[in-house]
């Protein structure tokens, strides 16, 4: 058992992207404490002007992701004892996204890329028609199931070095969503998805470094999904079903 220090020494990135600075806070350490608890303590007890984002506090909504000691994490499910054995925490806004203020990032580029990847449902039936039954044991469904627990937290996007080097790259989350739809028998626009992920910012830019899979808090593997998209786009191009 490591002894809990009495105080945590926390640095928080404050300000906007154009004018950012690090501020230091001493926060009382608790035996059972998440990084989000620490940020909330600073906002409630030390500086009410601190901006950050959270909602559910139980790892479902995906809104509280931040950089913690240089690593993207969901702060509501990250215990301080797991990441700051020496009592030091460095908290910053998510990487690869514009900062609005303090720890709140602008998620627009992240979600715009979901739309650009055609990572939204294209229905095969209207609401007045019968339900389209899904076979739970089909290989396509099993493949889609591997990726559908994404909570859109942006951690994979912040972890991805290809996004950092190539701002046009659609990123792991959007591409994984496109892959789950490609494997969904209820999605009607397979050619549209394949075309959307084959452009200049598409799946072929992935270098398979695996940071997305490494840091995904839900244990998903977007790299596997992207490899699947590469395979399917190449197959489709070789079959001549779309303009290569």
């Amino acid at each position, binding site marked *: 058992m490591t002894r809990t220090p009495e105080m945590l020494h926390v640095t928080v990135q404050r300000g906007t992207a154009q004018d950012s600075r690090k501020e230091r806070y001493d926060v009382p350490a608790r035996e059972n404490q998440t990084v989000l608890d620490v940020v909330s303590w600073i906002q409630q007890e030390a500086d009410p002007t601190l901006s950050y984002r959270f909602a559910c506090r139980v790892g479902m909504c995906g809104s509280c992701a931040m950089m913690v000691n240089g690593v993207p994490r969901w702060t509501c499910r990250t215990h301080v004892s797991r990441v700051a054995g020496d009592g030091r925490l460095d908290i910053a806004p998510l990487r690869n996204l514009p900062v609005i203020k303090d720890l709140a990032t602008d998620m627009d580029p992240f979600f715009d890329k979901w739309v650009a990847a055609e990572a939204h449902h294209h229905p095969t039936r209207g609401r007045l028609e019968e339900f389209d039954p899904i076979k739970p044991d089909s290989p396509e469904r099993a493949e889609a199931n591997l990726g559908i627990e994404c909570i859109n937290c942006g951690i994979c996007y912040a972890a991805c070095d*290809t996004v950092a*080097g*190539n701002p*046009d*790259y659609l990123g792991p989350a959007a591409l994984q969503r496109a892959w789950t739809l490609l494997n969904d028998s209820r999605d009607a626009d397979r050619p549209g998805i394949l075309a959307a992920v*084959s*452009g*200049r*910012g*598409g799946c*072929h*830019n992935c270098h398979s470094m695996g940071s997305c899979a490494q840091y995904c808090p839900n244990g998903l593997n977007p790299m596997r999904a992207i490899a699947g998209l*590469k395979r399917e*786009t*190449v197959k489709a*191009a070789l079959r001549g079903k779309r303009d*290569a």
Partner: protein
Amino acid sequence: MLDLRLYMAQRLSALVMAPLVLGHIAVMIYAIQGGLSTAEILGRTQGSLLWFLFYGTFVLAVSVHAAIGLRVIAHEWLRLRGTALGLLTWGTCAALLALGFSAVFAVTLP
């Protein structure tokens, strides 16, 4: 920066290069082990369509593969884009083709 067409060009050129690299290494080891002189090597390669095709294909594959690889690095690390990136890609490809084929012609033309 890497669309499907460039991705496939790079993968296919790698596919072509793999056996040619092994062949090239085997040739080098054979030439050195046997103690072949320059004249003996040129005597076998000059006028040989087979060696021209072997190394000509190698040069083509290398030029395509390396140009696309450098394109990605230049974009991600040097932030090159647009015309500059296109010039670098095609320039690298053209330079490797020129250097490679001048060497191939030198050893295979009769």
